[in-house]
């Protein structure tokens, strides 16, 4: 039990931040509950993890994170939408940078920018979002992401590329205003 507590303590931050980035844009209130569910699932299936087969624990753990998030989105009947569908979706409020925003470099502007990025990422198709988040914020290699998502390395590279291009397009007005 103490050993498992150490695992939870060590991984709580990357796991929760990944869940937040994958589903938090739609269901921020569910993030910690999902985190608890995830660690319970890991505890129950620890005996199935075989480190000698060349799979890293973190790869195994984040595969579960990805699966849990996908299940949650399906359970909530959230369409794993395409970027085109997102663009036509006006239900989600779009944040605008305040006109009286402080000069760039201040904390407020960064927080506003962070919210803006989060909102844009939430509008990405879920497979692009997953590949992008795992690569950009958890620094997994393309090969590891390919294993986690059961795809080829080329597919993962393509998803990350398209995710970034879509995000860059969504954040154009901010990037031009800098």
């Amino acid at each position: 039990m103490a050993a498992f507590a150490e695992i939870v303590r060590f991984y709580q931050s990357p796991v929760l931040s990944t869940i937040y980035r994958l589903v938090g844009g739609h269901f921020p209130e569910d993030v910690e509950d999902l985190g608890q569910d995830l660690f319970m699932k890991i505890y129950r299936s620890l005996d199935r993890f075989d480190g000698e087969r060349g799979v890293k624990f973190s790869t195994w753990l984040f595969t579960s994170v990805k699966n849990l998030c996908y299940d949650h989105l399906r359970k909530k009947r959230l369409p794993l939408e395409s970027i085109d569908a997102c663009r036509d979706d006006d239900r989600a409020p779009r944040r605008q940078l305040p006109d009286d925003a402080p000069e760039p470099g201040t904390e407020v502007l960064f927080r506003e920018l962070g919210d803006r990025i989060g909102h844009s990422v939430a509008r990405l198709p879920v497979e692009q979002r997953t590949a992008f988040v795992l690569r950009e914020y958890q620094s997994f290699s393309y090969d590891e992401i390919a294993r986690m998502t059961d795809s080829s390395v080329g597919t993962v590279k393509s998803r990350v590329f398209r995710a970034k291009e879509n995000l860059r397009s969504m954040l154009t007005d901010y990037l031009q205003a800098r």
Partner: protein
Amino acid sequence: MNEIIDCGTVRGEIYLFIERELPEDRLRGIAAHIGDCERCREYESRVSDFESVLDRWDAPAPSAGFVEAVIERVAQHERNRRGTFRLQALVWGVRGMLHSTLRIPLPMGIAAAAILVLSVSLNFVLIRPARPTPSGVDGGNPPVVMVPGPSHVTSTGDATAAGGVLGEPRFPLFQPDIYRIANTVINRKNPVGQSTDVEKK
């Protein structure tokens, strides 16, 4: 081998170029092209700006009691698992005993146990006699067996002058025996002709 890198290649591989995720000769080729091409240089600059902006998206820190909440759930899971295991062990034990020793299938064994429990319960509910009251009125004093003392025994067998009291029998099934024993004791203590039966009220 020197590859020809055009603007399309740079745009398609710009993120991998920034991440240094390309083979060395490819990296050199793209870097050379960017050095020569003004448009690609601007493009690379915009993409680098965008990459630096992505770091601004912070996730909230876990709440203070997150680890404790997970461990509590794990402990609860363990308690449930142990309880289930004990029950399972009991079932398997009973099943093994019934099957290997008595050659009785488990459902039959359960049915027999249920009948046994039911019959014992029914004994208390149905076989127990109604409580008699001295006045014959329900709700009177609890029934007692009056055992008259030798000096107060009358020829009429007046039990109201009792010297000793046997309390209410705890096991109604054996109540007749208690009456019989009480009478035997009394008759033994009193000479013939002065004996009396204990009245069953």
